[in-house]
């Protein structure tokens, strides 16, 4: 029987350490078996007298491929925390089946779960570091619990602190660290027993955007370099966008949509998904244009289009192509390009003047070029072009600021 997949993943810093005994590790029967698999899982809180029972999760199906980063996003109270705690047995499912590396753990005893938990790391929103222990001793705690001897603990903890960039803080106490540093300690601690799976429970929700980015980058590195499978739960869409490969959207205890981050972001199907995704991808019609948009084309109006750049189109020069194809000007009204799961996804609002004939030609051209776009309406052309004039904003050096 083979032991858990993650042997060898930690060579960079475990080479000098005694390898942890994993003869009792989770068996892996099949290379393609998912790291985590929830099958029609439900969790109902038992009713207290005078209160109805409450379903935290209903029919949840979720698969986390080995080596992938999967995010579960949803509003607070959607059941995210319960979901992630099912994976390491901190909560028990009331129906359905839970598999880790193909092994059914649904009916595991508390003792059995303890062994499994030593192979699943977890980090928390509020870090949950022991205030009475130094950084070093916090990272050492899971190893002490697993009964690893002192010499092995020392070399492993030192390696981990190096990995998270906190070697110089080993003898400090958590109270002396910033939030980002505390989460780095949390990550080092979670990785100390060489887990195959890392669970992140709102791990960046208490951090500022800058620190969030550095923590996400660290998690990504851990996934790429150590091959740790990561399951993230969050209510922050940037976490999904910047970190995850796949996403599941959860609402009222049910998964309403799931798929690759790129697909879900570029073509959300469920309204909740659309609401989350909108923050990142949507480009609104600027207010000074929106008020004048009409459904019917006037004699001198511009056609207002929202063009989506997905995948290969994201980098193609649509404006210049339209200009050369049509021989007409194209006004850029608004736009942005985002990297989603490391792939570009852009939205551009353009106004094509001289419609209807030029507008129709533009639509034909876009169809030929294979762009996704929607027609938003028509705007009196000169109004857009002259919009800036009333402000009397001359382009002189003192008005130009280089950011």
């Amino acid at each position, binding site marked *: 029987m083979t032991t858990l997949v993650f042997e060898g993943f930690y060579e960079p810093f475990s080479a000098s350490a005694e390898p942890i005994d994993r003869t009792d590790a989770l068996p892996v029967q099949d290379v393609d078996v998912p790291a985590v698999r929830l099958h029609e899982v439900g969790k109902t809180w038992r009713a207290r007298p005078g209160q109805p029972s409450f379903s935290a999760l209903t029919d949840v199906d979720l698969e986390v491929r080995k080596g992938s980063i999967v995010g579960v996003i949803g509003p607070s109270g959607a059941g995210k925390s319960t979901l992630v705690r099912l994976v390491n047995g901190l909560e028990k499912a009331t129906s359905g089946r839970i598999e880790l590396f193909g092994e059914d753990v649904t009916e595991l005893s508390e003792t059995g779960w303890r062994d499994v938990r030593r192979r699943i790391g977890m980090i928390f929103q*509020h870090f949950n570091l022991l205030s*009475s222990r130094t950084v070093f001793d916090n990272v050492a705690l899971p190893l002490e619990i697993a009964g690893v001897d002192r010499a092995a603990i020392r070399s492993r903890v030192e390696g981990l602190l190096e990995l998270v960039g906190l070697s110089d803080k080993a003898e400090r106490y958590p109270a002396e660290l910033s939030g980002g540093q505390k989460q780095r300690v949390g990550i080092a601690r979670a990785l100390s027993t060489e887990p195959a799976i890392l669970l992140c429970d709102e791990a960046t929700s208490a951090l500022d955007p800058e620190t969030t980015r550095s923590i996400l980058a660290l998690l990504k590195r851990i996934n790429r370099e150590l091959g740790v499978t990561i399951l993230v739960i969050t209510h922050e869409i940037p976490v999904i966008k910047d970190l995850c490969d796949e996403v599941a959207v959860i609402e009222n205890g049910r998964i309403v949509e799931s798929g690759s981050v790129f697909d879900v972001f570029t073509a959300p199907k469920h309204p909740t998904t659309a609401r989350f995704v909108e923050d990142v991808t949507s480009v609104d019609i600027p207010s000074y244009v929106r008020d004048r948009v009409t459904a019917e084309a006037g004699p001198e109006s511009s056609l207002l289009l929202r063009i989506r750049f997905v995948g290969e189109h994201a980098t193609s020069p649509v404006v210049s192509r339209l200009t050369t194809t049509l021989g007409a000007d194209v006004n850029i009204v608004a736009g942005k390009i985002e990297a989603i799961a490391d792939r570009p996804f852009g939205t551009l609002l353009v106004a094509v003047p001289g419609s209807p004939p030029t507008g129709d030609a533009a639509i034909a051209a876009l169809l030929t070029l294979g762009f996704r776009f929607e027609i938003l309406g028509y705007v009196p052309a000169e109004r857009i072009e002259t919009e800036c004039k009333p402000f009397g904003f001359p382009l002189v050096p003192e008005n130009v600021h280089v950011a």
Partner: protein
Amino acid sequence: MSPELVRLILDATLETLTMVLVAASVGIGAGLPLGVFLATSRRGELFAAPTLNAVLGFVVNVTRSTPFIILVVAIVPLTRLIAGTSIGTRAAVVPLTIAAAPFIARIVEAAIREVDQGLVEAARAMGATPFQIVRKVLVPEALPGIVLGLTLAVVSLLGFSAMVGAVGGGGLGDLGIRYGYQRFMPEVMALVVAVLVVLVQAAQTLGDRLARRVNKRLRNA
């Protein structure tokens, strides 16, 4: 000050210290595990045993609500059984300990309940057993509170020890009553109070220092 008086005071101080230290040590020995159990045995907790928790909680409350002087007299048979006598310093230690243990248990319980539940969850997520959680998380994290609480317990014991004169327990309180009050020697009374003030002050200072030393939470403050 006559040498006899100095002797009396010294002997009484020694008796008081013996009673308090023995009662505190045995009280901690019994109160610490009892407190840990009380803090972790309600429904859904680490060592869930709601019935035993309720029973022990009740026993603790009964002991704590009995006025100490009544407790001293009420348990005389038990005292005789344990100490072999019902008078003297040896005997006085028994009611002192029985009063101290539940007090310390409640202090430990309160300190442990203050520990962030997130830490317990983190330890469970690491695969810790309930005993490991107590030893490596709950007690160390509650230690600053426990130390301060124990200081309070020791100071209270100094006060209680004055009452065991009722069973011939000796000590400073007994000296103060017999000489200072019954023999109209106010200077003995004043001296006894002065020594007690010094002892309380010393205990409190030591406790505060120790608590600050084990508290790593406010390093920057």
